[in-house]
């Protein structure tokens, strides 16, 4: 069963504001009709009509652009069974490389590679844990974070996050310093680290 994450994103807030705005316009118009004298009514209503028309048009444009953003830039994470999130960190030729893949149906795999050593683990996440993963990713959406372009310092790992939803793929590579500079990215790193720990029964720690 796939349930939508309860993310109170900016788009959702925008839609709520627009709905309130429509209601407010309607109530104000009714008040105007009731309170204004007949002599003033025609001129006042005309002005009010154009104000409301402009506001409503702007609201509709905002609303449609909000929907456009929703479909193009911030489609929900791990929403369907053919969606997945992949996290990879490190170098297999030094401290080792850890890869975590979480599927929309809750299947989670962890792989640790260091030179010829390779360890793989697979587990099904419990529904409540999957929901926790979804809500964390929704709250700290990796697509909102910025990747620094500065030089790496020695031994600095790279973090790659890939999000797949059907035929759409989003991928970005961060440097390790990015997670220390952006605490919300660190939340995602901690999330994937905890999944790696759980799925590998403590054998993969970071």
């Amino acid at each position, binding site marked *: 069963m796939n349930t939508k994450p309860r993310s109170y994103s900016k788009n959702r807030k925008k839609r709520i504001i627009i709905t309130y705005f429509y209601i407010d316009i309607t109530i104000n118009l009714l008040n105007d009709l009731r309170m204004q004298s007949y002599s003033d009514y025609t001129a006042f209503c005309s002005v009010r009509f154009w104000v409301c028309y402009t506001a409503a048009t702007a609201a509709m444009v905002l609303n449609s652009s909000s929907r456009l953003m929703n479909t193009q830039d911030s489609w929900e994470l791990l929403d369907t069974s053919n969606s997945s999130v992949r996290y990879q960190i490190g170098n297999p030729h*030094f401290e080792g490389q850890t890869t975590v893949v979480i599927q929309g149906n809750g299947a989670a795999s962890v792989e640790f590679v*260091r*030179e010829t050593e390779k360890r793989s683990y697979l587990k099904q996440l419990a529904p409540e844990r999957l929901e926790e993963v979804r809500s964390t990713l929704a709250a700290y959406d990796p697509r909102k974070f910025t990747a620094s372009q500065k030089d790496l310092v*020695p031994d600095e790992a790279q973090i790659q996050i890939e999000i797949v939803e059907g035929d759409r793929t989003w991928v970005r590579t961060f440097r*390790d310093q990015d997670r220390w500079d952006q605490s919300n990215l660190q939340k995602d790193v901690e999330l994937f680290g905890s999944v790696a720990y759980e799925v590998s029964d403590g054998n993969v720690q970071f």
Partner: protein
Amino acid sequence: MPDPVEINELIQDPPFGWTSRYHTFIEDDRIDVRLRINLRSDQQISLRDVLKVRAGTEDSVNHYFNQRFEMVDSEGRKRPLRVSIEFISDSPDLMVRLHPGKGRSNLNHWFVDADPIIRAHEVGHALGLPDEYVDPMSKNRATADASGIYHDHSLMGNFFSEGVDQAELKQRHGEILANKISEATGIPLKAQEQPRITPNGPHEVTTTHEFLLQYKENWAHIQPTYSGMKM
């Protein structure tokens, strides 16, 4: 005490880049290299853990860097190289953020429970030594046979796979340090390996044992006073 000479150099190993900064003192009987580290943390780390990291770093640096090289000047005078760490808060050569538990360390981020060899490795970077393990991102180290790669149990190489116990600094590292100190002080120096003596390792026992055997074979008959020593 002689005035310190600052060594400050930008090291490039694209896409990696960092500033190597430390001080050297030319003494009559040795050459001191001093690295001042500011160890700080945004997280709650106990004083005990901080002290553990400090002591572990000093021990690790002492183990890998000291009693390792002699610097020989143009007159043939030999001075042992001694590297020391100082933890300070003002004007450090290296800023390090300390994190609890285990994690992926780098030059500027250390973890309390990381293996001490990693901190000696990072100090190596602070002194200007480059990495020597394979990294597909690096131009000089992209593959196992690239020019910047060494598989000879180097402290700067992949000691995780080659063996932590066998890791050590190599002659090339001594030469890098000698060149930097020479450039900064104007005194031409060459590095020469010193016999490695480890407190608990087999070298000390073997060296002493071999020395005593040689002494017994070569000199015992000349100085009979000592011939009665149990060897």
